[in-house]
């Protein structure tokens, strides 16, 4: 193709080859941006990423089918054992690379700037609050004119990291109005189901009185709920999402290069938006093929670099990692050989 033809000559690096990864679809847009940046800098390199889902991505990585995986969740204990084997007895390098706010989106003509408390959100998605002019909603929005129309909650019909993060948030903060726990598969009947982030957005757009949850960057013109954190209402902005990493704790008892985050959903700190999705890229510390190791290392280095994070923020709407955090992550990447 035209845009590939001219590539050959002006390579500025000595890296070459093909790097294959697979996994979470949430990262896909960001990966595209990284591919562009990385391949432009290293024109003899091709990076491929199959957005087959986190589960599939981890599985294929563990089987040795891909060099790295994208995943909305870190590896569990079982997987860690398998990973040891896959990585020639070395540890995995597992780093959060993509942090993005999940917005609670709604379509209710005449109502802008909806604000909701976690308890109310939980009750809406649980199906216990069914009309827009419910007192609970009215309490959060004293100024809004709420119609007497039914609420149609929209959730994901496919299993997804977005659902898992959203339900994790509800479980932690709803004070019991959400009862179904933190799960990947939407656990309760009732409401609308839609496939993928874009499906949820489309469903919310096409019906009136709908409310759903989706990656904030894809919400388009839809209203985004400001959720109650502590005593104030926080909208899903990149900055607010980025700040959540500062409040997150690293999960204990894992290898040093395996940076698994426990996000504090119950934070009351001002200006922090707690419904975020953190997506990881998972690689090995050692590879049999040193060229492969080289590539992976260069790739991850770029991904977490300031440039890389900026590119992702621009074209995927993610929250860039803070400088402190990038340093910590880079240390893990540097162990790859």
């Amino acid at each position, binding site marked *: 193709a035209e845009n590939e033809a001219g590539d050959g000559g002006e390579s500025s690096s000595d890296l070459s080859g093909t790097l294959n990864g697979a996994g979470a*679809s949430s990262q896909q847009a960001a990966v595209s941006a990284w591919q562009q940046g990385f391949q432009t800098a290293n024109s003899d390199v091709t990076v491929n990423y199959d957005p*087959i*889902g*986190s*589960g*599939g991505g*981890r*599985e294929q990585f563990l089987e040795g089918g891909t060099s790295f995986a994208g995943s909305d969740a870190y590896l569990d204990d079982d997987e860690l054992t398998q990973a040891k084997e896959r990585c020639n007895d070395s540890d995995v390098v597992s780093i959060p690379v993509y942090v993005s706010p999940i917005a609670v989106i709604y379509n209710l003509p005449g109502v802008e700037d909806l604000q909701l408390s976690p308890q109310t959100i939980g009750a809406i998605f649980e199906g216990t609050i069914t009309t827009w002019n419910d007192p609970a909603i009215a309490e959060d929005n004293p100024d809004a004119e709420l119609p007497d129309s*039914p609420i*149609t909650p*929209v959730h994901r*019909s*496919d*299993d*997804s*990291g977005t659902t898992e993060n959203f339900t994790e948030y509800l479980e932690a903060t709803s004070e019991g109005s959400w009862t179904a726990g933190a799960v*990947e*598969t*939407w656990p309760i*009947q*009732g*409401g*609308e*189901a*839609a*496939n*993928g982030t874009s*499906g949820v957005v*489309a*469903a919310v757009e*096409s*019906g*009136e*009185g*709908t409310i759903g949850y989706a990656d904030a960057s894809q919400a388009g013109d839809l209203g985004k709920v400001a959720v109650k954190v502590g005593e104030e209402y926080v909208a899903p902005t990149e900055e607010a999402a980025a700040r959540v990493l500062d409040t997150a704790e690293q999960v204990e008892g894992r290898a040093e290069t395996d940076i698994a985050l426990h996000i504090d959903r119950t934070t009351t700190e001002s200006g922090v938006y707690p419904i975020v999705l953190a997506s990881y890229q998972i690689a090995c510390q050692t590879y049999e093929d040193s060229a492969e190791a080289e590539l992976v290392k260069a790739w991850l280095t770029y991904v977490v670099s300031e440039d890389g994070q900026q590119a992702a923020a621009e074209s995927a709407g993610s929250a860039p990692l803070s400088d402190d955090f990038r340093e910590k992550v880079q240390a893990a990447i540097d162990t790859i050989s």
Partner: protein
Amino acid sequence: MQSTARKRSTPTRPGDRIFRGTSVAAALTILATLAGVALFLTVEGIPGVLASPDEVKHGTTFIDYVVPLVFGTLLAAVLALAMAIPVAIGVALYISHYAPRRLAATLGYVIDLLAAVPSVVYGVWGISFLATALVPVYGWLERTLGFIPLFAGPASATGRTILTASIVLAVMVLPVITALCREIFLQTPRLHEEAALALGATRWEMAKLAIFPYARSGIISASMLGLGRALGETMAVAMVLSASGVITVNLISSTNPSTIAANIALTFNEATGLTVNALIASGLVLFLLTFLVNFAARAIVERRKDFSGAN
């Protein structure tokens, strides 16, 4: 009998032997492929069937898991075929015997195009156009026919119901059935059409006397192809249907049974371990389902084989 025994050992020419051998080999390849698929489904699926509820993500026994899916698959396919077959036969007949000839060729061509639309586009069309357009219709159905369980409601606010999915499926299988039926209708021997007309048959009676009996097995085959597609369609249903694993005959609410194929697509991405096996096992169930349906259809065709149109 002596002569039959002799016939078997009759030498054949090399050309014939090769050609026949190739044909048999092709047939056996299909057998092998199917055996491969069946083997794959069985080997990978059995652990999923046997898995205990706490080993899999859906947290139920396989039977409990798959029954609603089978229900949804059948419901969607039956609805789709019930809508598609009559329309497809009508369209085929229109093109082959009703439309002005010059127009007919073009029309056939245009309908064939429907077969080419990628399922993703059907999915998007289903969500963005069809479902939206049907919302008021579903509202009306709920208000006026709500006493029938099929339309009990509450009507979906976005229109992404199993009925919508079935309509999308019907549109998808329509060209498959139409194209085959049309070719077959066109092949009806002149001789027989004329025989019917000469008896003073109207055009419709001619169709009943000469065309349909002749095309019977073809229509069934075409419908089977359509059924196959309806049962197995993945992406379009996954995108259009607001699915949750329930069993309900309510066609217009937002809580709908899922289908096997769509469910695989929706859950496969994030599935690991035995859950994957369970999904593949559900594929095996679909496979068996197709087996049964076809068995029934075959039985119907075989019954009147003596009267087949060839000759």
